[in-house]
């Protein structure tokens, strides 16, 4: 197997606030290879967005502080690189898409100009993107960037791309804006795409189209994707792999079919039981009591223990390590083996 695109190892992050320092990422482990779509799933406040932002070092520091761990992107540790080197990777090697397509485009500029700016910034590190002679002048490069922008709009399925370049963001619908943002994220030909809740603000029908577009992009360009979402359904329909996060930990991860069909961690199971499916009978939905723990003084041991139906005294002694349960499927629960044995018996 070739070297992974992205390898996050034992990442610890704290954020300071009025109340104290919150331990928001507590030993994240994640490996993304080309061709994979990783779903990073969990409820609000579990640290999934922070993980995404950490990869391209977008968190301001302070309040953010990395205690230990590494984020290796194509072998280089992003946390040790000088910030200028990280900026050079943004947009060029790592593309990002965020949740709200209405606020993520600059309202004061035509979208063509915004796309051209990103393309030119990426081209300053890799001139081949623009597909024009290396000694080309400014105007020629700009024209090439504009051609590229139109081609990108076409690729993300925006009809009549040439003319649309001269439109302002508010002249597009929500779904179309998200397509523009995807085009913008892909224009520098990144190897890794981080999509943070890209469809949460969209209607279901548009969501399906955008997810299809993402899947197609991975197939066409052999890139790796991290899809951050709170919606397990989106993960099931789109991703190849999934990592379930709870209170700053990845509690379970593996191929999507494995995790969805044989969830091993009690939190994953609780999450799935809370989603109404076709078979759920009225009144049979299972909520999850309690709330996400306070991360300034997190509970000892397993952070899910206070809400877990299977808690035993040993759970609160130490943070449970991720246990490999075959087929690349891991779960961070000390009772996972006996649970599985019980299910199979």
């Amino acid at each position, binding site marked *: 197997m070739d070297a992974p695109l992205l390898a996050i190892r034992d990442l610890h992050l704290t954020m300071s606030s009025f109340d104290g320092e919150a331990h928001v990422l507590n030993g994240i482990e994640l490996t993304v290879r080309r061709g994979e779509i990783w779903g990073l799933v969990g409820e609000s406040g579990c640290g999934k967005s922070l993980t995404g932002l950490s990869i391209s070092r977008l968190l301001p520091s302070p309040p953010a502080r990395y205690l230990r761990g590494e984020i290796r992107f194509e072998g280089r540790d992003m946390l040790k690189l000088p910030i200028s080197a990280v900026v050079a990777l943004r947009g060029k090697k790592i593309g990002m898409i965020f949740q709200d397509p209405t606020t993520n485009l600059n309202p004061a500029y035509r979208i063509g100009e915004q796309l051209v700016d990103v393309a030119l910034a990426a081209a300053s590190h890799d001139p081949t993107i623009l597909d024009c002679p290396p000694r080309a002048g400014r105007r020629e490069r700009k024209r090439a960037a504009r051609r590229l922008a139109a081609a990108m709009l076409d690729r993300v399925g925006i009809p009549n791309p040439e003319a649309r370049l001269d439109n302002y963001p508010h002249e597009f619908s929500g779904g179309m804006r998200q397509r523009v943002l995807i085009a913008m994220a892909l224009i520098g030909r990144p190897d890794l795409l981080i999509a943070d809740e890209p469809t949460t603000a969209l209607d279901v029908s548009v969501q399906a189209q955008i997810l299809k577009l993402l899947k197609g992009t991975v197939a066409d360009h052999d890139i790796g994707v991290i899809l951050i979402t709170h919606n397990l359904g989106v993960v099931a329909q789109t991703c190849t792999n999934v990592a379930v996060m709870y209170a700053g930990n990845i509690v379970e991860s593996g191929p999507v079919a494995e995790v969805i069909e044989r969830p091993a961690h009690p939190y994953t199971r609780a999450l799935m039981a*809370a989603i109404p499916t076709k078979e759920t009978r009225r009144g049979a939905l299972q909520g999850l009591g309690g709330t996400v723990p306070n991360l300034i003084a997190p509970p000892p041991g397993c952070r899910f223990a206070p809400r877990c139906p299977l808690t035993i005294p040993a759970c609160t002694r130490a943070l449970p390590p991720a246990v490999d349960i075959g087929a690349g499927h891991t779960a961070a629960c000390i009772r996972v083996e006996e649970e599985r044995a019980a299910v199979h018996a």
Partner: protein
Amino acid sequence: MPEPILVIDNVSKVYPGRRGMFGRSAEVQALKGISIAVDRGESFGLVGESGSGKTTLTRSILHLEQPTSGRILFEGRDLATLSGAELRRLRARVQIVFQDPYASLNPRMTVQDIVTEPMVVHQDVLGLGGRQRTERAAELLSLVGLGPQHLRRYPHEFSGGQRQRICIARALASGPELLLLDEPTSALDVSVQAQVLNLLCDLQDRLGLTYFFISHDLAVVRYLCSRVALIYRGELVEEGETGRIFDAPETEYAQMLIGAMPEVSVPR
């Protein structure tokens, strides 16, 4: 056959174009001849995407807006013909829970003030004294899974799920028969959403409420509602029993919408 509790009869709503800085925008037809009947005790789901006219319809039922044409009848009586006093009495019987639990509670009022407010407003109908109101507020809080110890607190001290429970308690305070639920769980995490949905089921069984459930989340509607109506751009596209609609949608729009539902199962 018993009379439906709520009848929406061929309701249309047109917003005149707004005058902007550089001209006038076109008028917007938010609702185009919608007709729906909701039976007593049932859960009726109204599904639509953004811009479908859900919000306008909800506001019209609450009589916060007047439809351009058509009638809205509650227990057979046209809202438009009611006098001010009658309308106020009606408000005690039709209540609403909004989507955003953070915005729908007045930050300057205690939970007690919030929950007792409908009782104060409808003093003439309910006839509760100060102490009785506090007692009833405590009862209502217990009913929605909170407790009397929360009465003196302010909304900002509660989580989203707890706030939504307070909203439900407030909605129940005047003893309504019809509850409009305007996406009550879409701002909540799934685990909390499940709790609130369970609470709603439980309350309906206990109190015999009628739900008019507005949502864009098909899975939630399928779970909670017995009948569903789909609206698209102000028009009623399809209506029927929940099972029938989800298993065999007739219109193209319904098929597309249900096909786009992200189910938590791995596609084969």
